[in-house]
């Protein structure tokens, strides 16, 4: 209901990627793997993108991708421990740091979308019309309007914290509810309480019909949301199916894969944009 305008167009950047360090590839296995295991975030999983992307990959390479969806923090932990083969997450800073530390390799900025601020149609805090999310956050804090925070160390939550910091808000009182849940549940609660929250666009769009919320602010460059794909470094975990993960990354980054991402829509609206959408 409340999405007034299309997401701010942010130009896709060229595909080539500054992969942190080239990895010495182990000997190509003779027999192809039947499957690989990918950990991703709930928002990605819930969007339904993988339901079109993975069958196409399966079709082409005969490798099944089994998906485990977890909070971003847990997904990264699973990868570090070598319990999955590949990650598709959206916490760029942590991803780059972990590549640096050698846990992951072959990281690529595979797609992006953006965060939006949602709130009740009545918009008691008067956020609609503001251009800067920091202003909106200040207004909410100033008026003590209900704001729900993921509070779960997810990519979204980390972004939210950054914005509070930028807005200079440090005094959180009763109006600020840290709910420690996934995006979908947080949105549901926000709708019930008629409060405000920060969400990724994909999750919001896929739940929109069931929510009594509107987008009250979007398009601020601060709200940018980059997804990355990366393989677990076989030098840390020799058992991972590195060769197959490479095939999957190649596929994701190929024109075919990028095309699938670009053309994936719900209710006529794009959820993700291919490639990298941000300058380092």
């Amino acid at each position: 209901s409340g999405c007034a305008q299309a997401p701010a167009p942010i130009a896709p950047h060229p595909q080539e990627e500054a992969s942190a360090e080239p990895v010495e590839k182990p000997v190509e296995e003779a027999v192809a793997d039947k499957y690989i295991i990918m950990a991703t975030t709930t928002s990605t999983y819930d969007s339904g993108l993988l339901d079109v992307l993975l069958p196409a990959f399966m079709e082409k390479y005969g490798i099944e991708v089994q998906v485990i969806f977890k909070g971003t923090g847990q997904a990264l932990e699973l990868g570090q421990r070598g319990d999955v083969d590949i990650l598709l997450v959206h916490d760029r800073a942590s991803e780059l740091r972990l590549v640096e530390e050698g846990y992951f390799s072959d990281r690529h900025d595979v797609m992006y979308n953006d965060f939006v601020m949602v709130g009740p149609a009545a918009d008691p805090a008067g956020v609609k019309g503001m251009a800067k999310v920091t202003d909106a956050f200040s207004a909410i804090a100033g008026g003590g309007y209900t704001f729900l925070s993921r509070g779960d160390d997810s990519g979204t939550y980390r972004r939210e914290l950054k914005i509070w910091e930028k807005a200079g808000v440090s005094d959180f009182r009763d109006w600020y509810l840290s709910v420690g849940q996934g995006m979908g549940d947080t949105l549901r609660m926000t709708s019930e309480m008629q409060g405000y929250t920060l969400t990724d666009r994909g999750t919001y769009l896929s739940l929109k019909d069931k929510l009594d919320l509107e987008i009250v602010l979007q398009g601020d460059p601060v709200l940018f949301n980059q997804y990355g794909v990366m393989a677990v470094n076989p030098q840390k975990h020799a058992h991972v199916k590195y060769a197959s993960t490479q095939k999957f990354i190649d596929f994701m980054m190929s024109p075919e894969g990028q095309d699938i991402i670009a053309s994936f829509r719900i209710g006529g609206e794009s959820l993700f944009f291919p490639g990298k959408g941000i300058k380092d």
Partner: protein
Amino acid sequence: MPPLLEGISEAFYLILTFDPYLMRIVFLSLQVSGTAVLLSTLVGVPLGTFLGLKPAGRTRLISKLLYTLMGLPPVVAGLVIYLLFSRMGPFGVLGLLWTPAIMIIAQFVLALPIIAGLTMIAIRSRGKTIQETALTLGAGKLLTAWTVVRESRFAIFGAIVTGLGRVIAEVGAVMMVGGNIAGRTRVMTTAIVLETGKGNFELAVGLGLVLLLIAFIINSLLYRFQEGGKNSAW
């Protein structure tokens, strides 16, 4: 390296420092689960006693129903209660969503079938004879029921502990209706899930151990209220 060991030391640290974050959620856990189990006991023990004293044949359907409800998935219970109390649901006007009160309701619904069902089973094995003995001695309905319960106290204690175990360890329903709001509706289990989601396995294991320790203490206290079932064989 071993997060399990770290979890144990984390647990000790949290307890020994009386960590205020911990204290608060422990207190809420106890309050919510304690109230829910108390209410379930007040309803479930009389209900189970009543059913247990009826001939098994006549309560076959209701027995099966109780057994089935023992397996009610908490997340389904939570979902249904959520839908009933949500703003657009029939009881939305009460505004109970995201409060400890509704968490108690959810846990009550989960503990009741267990306490009633296991009480029924306990009573069925020996209750009839006890009931008749009490009746012949001129006991009224209330004293009779109380006598039957008292004589089966060991098994009923087991029922209550099982019910308590179910709700204090439960996460799906309280998460659904309570919302895991920090400082308001966050209990031990939802905190554990949160920390797990963040990848803080040590803290999660630590919290889990604290929860188990609390369960142990509660059980030990409850244990005193009953004695081992004595029996004699002449």
